[in-house]
């Protein structure tokens, strides 16, 4: 097997005194998509924030294409091509749609390709094209989320990390966004996707990781075996205590 594109080894991270991640290890192959799921507040977002450089690891290492990248600043990591679309579409409220997108292409590597990027975003989200000069804070929740993804796409990432892109949206808009995510995935860009909807994750990703209490407690490669929705769902909602140990096939308990 080729060395992974992104490799996270024994990551320990926290805020202040509070530790959140307690030894997380994941790897992402080129062109691979992995899904993270699990209860809120157990470290999914913290993991993404550490990979993108917003948080510094207490312990552990992150490598990209073989090189150690943990400890680098978010700016350096964006230049490398690691793009995070943060949760809750936190954009630039007093800027227009167009200005938001241009900020997304701020990094030198992306700035050169900004026209290409705009074309791609407007093709994917025609609604944003219609609202180019509208202020971000006047957009609807769904449009803001589209814009957040657009801003991420403008970065021309080598790895795209989406943090609950459909959180709190109406079902119709959810579907629209999911279709867009599918189209982005079809371009082959490696992805780390955080979602609560398992069906969606199963359809879109190659592997699923369950994050609980700061650890990866289950890793499920569903390419190999028959997908067992029901059992995963049961595990997720029923709690791991009741799950049989042999369910964690191929998973690591750290």
């Amino acid at each position, binding site marked *: 097997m080729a060395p992974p594109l992104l490799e996270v080894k024994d990551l320990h991270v926290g805020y202040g005194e509070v530790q959140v991640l307690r030894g997380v290890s994941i790897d992402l192959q080129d062109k691979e998509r992995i899904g993270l799921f699990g209860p809120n507040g157990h470290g999914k977002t913290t993991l993404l924030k550490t990979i993108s450089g917003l948080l510094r690891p207490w312990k552990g290492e992150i490598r990209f294409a073989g090189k150690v990248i943990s400890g680098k600043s978010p*700016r350096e990591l964006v230049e490398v091509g690691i793009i995070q679309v943060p949760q809750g579409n936190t954009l630039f409220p007093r800027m227009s749609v167009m200005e938001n997108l241009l*900020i997304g*292409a701020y990094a030198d590597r992306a700035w050169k390709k900004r026209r290409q990027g705009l074309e791609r975003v407007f093709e994917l989200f025609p609604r944003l094209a219609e609202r180019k000069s509208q202020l971000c804070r006047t957009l609807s929740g769904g449009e803001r989320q589209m814009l957040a993804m657009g801003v991420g796409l403008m970065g021309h990432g080598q790895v795209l990390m989406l943090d609950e892109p459909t959180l709190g949206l109406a079902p119709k808009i959810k579907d629209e966004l999911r279709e867009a995510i599918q189209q982005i995935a079809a371009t082959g860009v490696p992805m780390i996707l955080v979602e609560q909807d398992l069906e969606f994750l199963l359809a879109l990703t190659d592997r699923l990781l369950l994050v609980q209490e700061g650890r990866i407690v289950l890793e499920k490669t569903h390419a190999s075996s028959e997908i067992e929705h029901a059992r995963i769902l049961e595990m997720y909602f029923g709690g791991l205590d009741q799950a049989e140990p042999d369910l964690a096939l191929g998973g690591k308990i750290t």
Partner: protein
Amino acid sequence: MTVQSLEAILLTGLVLGSLYALISTGLSMVWGTLRIFNFAYGSFMTVGAYVAWTIADKSALGAGIWLGVVIAIAVLIALGMLSERILIAPFIKRRDVALIAIITTLAASLFFENGAQILWGPRLKQLPAMVQGNVRFLGTMVDLQDVIVMISAPIVLGLVALFLYRTRLGRAIRAVEQNRDSALLAGVNVPLIYSLTFGFSAGLASVAGVILGITRFITPTMGDAPLLEAFIVVILGGLGSLGGTMVAAYIIALIEATCMTFLGLYWTPVVLFAIMILTLVFKPTGLFGKE
């Protein structure tokens, strides 16, 4: 109220308003982007005025006021960026950076004011006027220099707005002001933006310092009083609004000019600070402030 006094009030208000708009925009840029208050801002005006004087005055280099302005702006941008590196950058990650910045920038202000006293001496200095002569304006004869002051803020701030709204770097400054984390995730070099913002703000301070040096006198503490007025303007205008700051500058200036005419020198500051307190009590976000 006679027509003459109305004209005089309007004229004084427009000149003062222009000056306040310049001063408070620089102050508000730093406040909005770095979330700290720069108490060294007044001393930036002072240093800017002295630098311009050194270039312009016949007893010094005698190279003319216009070259003096240009060099003062350049020197102050550099000094501002350096100050940010020393006074703010080492503490920016700390939760109490806003408090630490009060202390470090106050210290810097003392340093610059006393430094100016040592370098240039305590004697009053004045910058030569940029232009001579009078024009008719609003039906009265007006000093041409006052007209220059009146149009300087709209012109300079127009350029600032063009920069902030139309360039890649300017947009990045606004992005950091509106959402620091998202700006980081987009690859914006936030430490550099902080430093540049501080530099630009010091550049604006030097323009204000030159205007003060022409219309009033240059002394080591010349920046203190205008800084207080700018503080009132920024509170009234509210954070994160360039236009709001400008409007508030003219409101405060016109109120000040009116009070000076009818209440006199003694009661004017009382009125201005009362406006500040009322703003903080009833609309802490200011007239045009966001969130």
